[in-house]
Structures are given as structure tokens and as C-alpha cells.
């Protein structure tokens, strides 16, 4: 038990939490933007995977991690436009479409990896690049806070900035207002001349961009390679984080941090004498518990509301 506390209350652990929260946070913000427009993007897992591989390939061929990042984001846009086109224009059930995209990404990345790197597991033979780590001036000198906050991958800072950007975008821009209007009441939005389909398309694209960032981080920051199914359910954990965060940027950030904590715990506990299988379950169990707690509180509140309504009536 002492060991456990030593692990959690160390600056290394604090650093690790931010490090593993990054992909979840990107994906959760991606889920948030599409959800606010009333479209569920469950293809985030596959989108991140596709972006991760694209980033590795392009950074290896151009020698620049930033070009890799650019193409990872383009891959994210590509994936989400497929989903948007099929679900909004061809009326594919968006959940089935998302499932299809996830399956496609899971196998398709291995397919492409084999063509490019002649390996079906890992991109080790590609000389891919890593996005830089950044030492924060001044903050890095502060004890405790410095080692936790400084020297992260640039994408980790991007993910934190993205929380603010998404907040600003949704609540302070005309497009954000339209997205929220469409999500809350598509018929009303339609009646004032907003094209629901167009707004939902745009929000899915934005969702793809954020998932693209998350994927790029996985293969060019979190680790320096692409491996088969490396996202390991983070795209789905993100859906839970977004739901727990009640579809608000700040709430989503806090929920992502919670799941990041579970993920970091699972990584650090591997040194303790607990069966590895149980340690690896931690993030997933936390997600289910988190989802259950969130859902139970939501239904209680809904229940209270209906009671109040009945009383009024």
C-alpha cells in the first residue's frame, strides 16, 4: 500500500497522467463537437488509428514530424468525411457506419503498414519522426509543479489549448452557436434557415481534425512508432469521458483527466506484484464505473425533474 502512495504522490506520476490523458482528451473533445451537433461519432477509435499511421508514414518520408502531423490531421478529416457523407447523405445509420470505419481502420492500417513497412505489427523499419518536447520557461523552475507541467510533448500542450479553443468555438462564435442550435433542436434550427446537414458535416470534420491530432500524438509523441491497434480503446474511453463531462469542454477535460489517471495508474502498477492482467483492466473498469455513476446521476436528476413537473401539473 505504501508503494502505491509513493507511486501516486510523485512528480513522475503527475507527469505521466498528463502524458496519457492527451490522446483521450483529443478524442473526447472530438466526440464533444460532433455530439453537440447531434451526431454521434463512434469512429474516433478508427480515425485516431488511421491518423497515427498516416503521421508515421509521412513523417518518415518527408523527415518532418510537422508534415506528419499535417497529414495525420488530413487523414482524420478524410475518415470523418466518409462517415459524414454516408450518414448524412446516404442515410447510413451512423452507429453502423462508425462500426464499419473502425473495422476498416483496424485492418486497413495493418494492410497499409504491410505495404509500406513490410511488417504487420509495428512500423519499426520506418524512420519516423517525433514531435518535439517543450520546456516551459519559468514554470519548469518551480518545484513539484515544474516537473509535472514542463517538458511535455507539444501535443500535450495543444490538447490543453484545444479545450479552450473548443470552448471558445462552441460558445463564442456564430458557427458554434449554430452547431449547438442544430444539436439541441434540429427542426427549430432548420426553421430559421440553418442547413442542419451542412452544420453536422462541419462538426464531424472538426471532430476528425481533433481525432487526427490525437492519433498523431499516439505514434509521434506518446511512442515513436505505429503498432497494430495501438489506440487500444482510447477512442471509446473518450466517448465515455465526453458523456461524463456532460458534453461541456471543461467537464470533458476533467473526465479525461480521471481516465488518464486510471491509465497512468495501470502503467505504473505494472512494477508491483499484482497480476498484470488486473492492472491492465484498470482503465476499462474505471470507464465502466464512471459511465455507470454518470448515468445513474443523470437518470436521478431526470427523475427529479419529472416529479417536479408532475407536482406543477
Amino acid at each position: 500500500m505504501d508503494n502505491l502512495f509513493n507511486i501516486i504522490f510523485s512528480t513522475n506520476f503527475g507527469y505521466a497522467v498528463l502524458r496519457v490523458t492527451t490522446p483521450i482528451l483529443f478524442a473526447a473533445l472530438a466526440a464533444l463537437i460532433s455530439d453537440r451537433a447531434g451526431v454521434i461519432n463512434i469512429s474516433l477509435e478508427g480515425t485516431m488509428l488511421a491518423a497515427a499511421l498516416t503521421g508515421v508514414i509521412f513523417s518518415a518520408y518527408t523527415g518532418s514530424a510537422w508534415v506528419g502531423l499535417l497529414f495525420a490531421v488530413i487523414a482524420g478529416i478524410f475518415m470523418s468525411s466518409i462517415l459524414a457523407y454516408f450518414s448524412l447523405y446516404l442515410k447510413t445509420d451512423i452507429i453502423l457506419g462508425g462500426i464499419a470505419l473502425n473495422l476498416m481502420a483496424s485492418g486497413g492500417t495493418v494492410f497499409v503498414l504491410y505495404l509500406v513497412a513490410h511488417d504487420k505489427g509495428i512500423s519499426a523499419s520506418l524512420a519516423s519522426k517525433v514531435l518535439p518536447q517543450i520546456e516551459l520557461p519559468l514554470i519548469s523552475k518551480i518545484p513539484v509543479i515544474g516537473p509535472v507541467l514542463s517538458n511535455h510533448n507539444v501535443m500535450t500542450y495543444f490538447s490543453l489549448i484545444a479545450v479552450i479553443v473548443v470552448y471558445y468555438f462552441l460558445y463564442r462564435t456564430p458557427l458554434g452557436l449554430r452547431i449547438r442550435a442544430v444539436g439541441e433542436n434540429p427542426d427549430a434550427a432548420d426553421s430559421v434557415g440553418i442547413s442542419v446537414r451542412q452544420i453536422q458535416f462541419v462538426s464531424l470534420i472538426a471532430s476528425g481534425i481533433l481525432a487526427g491530432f490525437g492519433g498523431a500524438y499516439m505514434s509521434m509523441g506518446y511512442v515513436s512508432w505505429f503498432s497494430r491497434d495501438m489506440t487500444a480503446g482510447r477512442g471509446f474511453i473518450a466517448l465515455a469521458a465526453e458523456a461524463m463531462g456532460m458534453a461541456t469542454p471543461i467537464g470533458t477535460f476533467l473526465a479525461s483527466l480521471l481516465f488518464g489517471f486510471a491509465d497512468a495508474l495501470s502503467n505504473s502498477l505494472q512494477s508491483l506484484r499484482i497480476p498484470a492482467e488486473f492492472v491492465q483492466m484498470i482503465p476499462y473498469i474505471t470507464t465502466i464505473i464512471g459511465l455507470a455513476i454518470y448515468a445513474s446521476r443523470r437518470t436521478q436528476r431526470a427523475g427529479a425533474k419529472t416529479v417536479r413537473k408532475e407536482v406543477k401539473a
Partner: protein
Amino acid sequence: MQKSTLFEFLRTVIAVLIAIIMAFIIIFFISKQPIEAINRFLFGPISSFRHFGNVLEMVIPLIFTSLAVSVMFQAKQFNMGAEGSFFIGAVAAAAIGIKFKLPPVLHPLVAIAAGGIVGGAANFIPAFLKARWKASELVSSLMLNYIMFNLGIYFINYYLRDPYAGAMVSYTVNPTANLPQFVPRTRIHAGIFIAVLAVIVVYYFLYRTRWGFALRMTGINSKFADYSGINTNMVILYSQIIGGMIAGIGGATELLGMYQRFQWQSLPGYGFDGIIVAILARNNPLLIPVAAVFLAYMRIGADLMSRMTDVPSEMVSVIQAVMIMLIAAEAFLSYWRHKMVVREAKIDG
């Protein structure tokens, strides 16, 4: 009614054709020996008796998982837990097969029943969370897959592992528990009869029983079902538990029919393949064997192609996605449906 069935059939065929044409285009782009590759892909599985046997071997688990998925999808429960239930069902069957000594016939039946119970128990979790608190069964069942995988591996490693096997595998299952393989030169096993039986039972359940009716009505319109007195919460529960049971039975059958030991080191993927089959078959149990044969044929074809040529078998995953997207696209070819409806109306008038 007849016409719309015909239309759905044509739509499926066209979607499949488009997907296969895409496969050809991909092959022509990446391969140095495209004709050979296409030849292997299309005709490999019927080139020898053994290879066609491989197709039927793969059909068995696919039938179980896709039946599981179709039961849940017919109730509009997007539960992805067939994968985890399949896996943990196989672990349970391995445990019974290794630890118990029972007479033949009874032994596999007990092991398969255990697989079903464990698979159903696994899916109880997302089902309960959905029924009680409306928690998304999609997310919780996906998380559950990872949990079931780790739990299964834990049991194999700590309780059933054969330390002298040289690899991370379980002890051998007692021969009394194995399902007999009855076609020489293939591994087609008695599980195929269980699969066929499962198709009939699930069909009967969905279309001829009160519970099945309630399940389908909930799927079509849960509010309407609610108003007409159907306990939709019960449907949410039992549709997913039954789905988990079928998947668990599938995992147990696969293990006892195909293997002597438990040796999976990762999720075998049949649960997700089951989703593809169920979508191809429009969640109709009677169409599932056809769709399962189709998918297995494509998989074995791709596998043979990748062994003989430079095209990796994962190509299939791309064309599968195209197929699912097009088949699930309501607006795909809807222009023709519209025309057909108009023509029919004119004739009637």
C-alpha cells in the same frame, strides 16, 4: 412485400459487387501479379476440398457470433460484447474440459453450457447498466471486451497454464470434451450441427414467441412498444444476455471443436466479424448461414491470396467496410426503389 424483399436482395448484391470491384482495383494498384492474386482470391477456396473445409470451419463461430449480434441489434441494442463473451466462453469451456472428468457427449455439453452461462453473465453488465440507468451499452460493452480478455488470460495463466508446453497455453482438454471432427482432411466438427440448431432456435425465438415479438417491437419503436404494454426494460436486459449466451456458446464450441488447448493470445475477432455477418443478413437468422459462408469464403480467399502473392489479407477489411456502409445506407439506390413503388402504385390504381 415481395418486391421490397427483391429490392433489398438486389441492393445487397450491388453493394457486394461494388466492394469486390474495389478489391480488384486495389489489387491492380499494389500487386505485381494481379491476375494471380484475383484468381486466388475468387477461386482459392474452391480450388481444393481442404480449402473449402476451411471455409466451413470458419462459418461455425461466425454463425454463433452473428446470431448473438442479430438478437441484440433486432432490439436496437448496439452491444459490441459478442467478442468478449465469445472469448470468455471459450475460457470457461477450456476450464470444464481440463478440470472435469465426464463421460463423452455429456462433457462437451456441460462445457458448452458453461460457456453460454459465462458469456451471458458477461453481457449482463452492459445490459443492466442500460436497463437501470440508460448507460450507453455501446461504450460499456466495448470496455467489457478488454476486461473479459484480460480476465480470460488471467485464468489461463494462473489456473490452467501448462508449464511444460513451452508457450503460453493451457493444459490439453480431456479428449472426452472435444467435439468430434467428422470430415476427413478438414477440421469441420460437430459444432456445425449446434450452429444450425442455434439458427433454428433463434429464428423460432424471434418470430414465434412472445419474448421474441416483444424484442422485435422494442427494436422497431421502443416508445410504441412501451405504450402497448411491453416491458422494454426487460427486453433491454434479456436481448443482451441472450446475445452474450449465444456468443459464449460459440466460443466454447470453437474451442472444443478446433483446439486441444486454449491458445489465443489476443481476441480472435469473431465478435466483430459477427457484426458484419449480421448486417449482411439484415439480422435475419435464416439468412445468417448464407452471409456467414460468404464472409468466410472471402476471408479464406484473401488468406490464400496473401500466402501465394504479395497482397496482404487485410485488404478484406477495406472492402468489408464499403459493403457495410452501402448496405446500411438507406438512400443508396433509393431512387430505384422509389420508381418501383410508383410503378406498383400505378398498376394497382
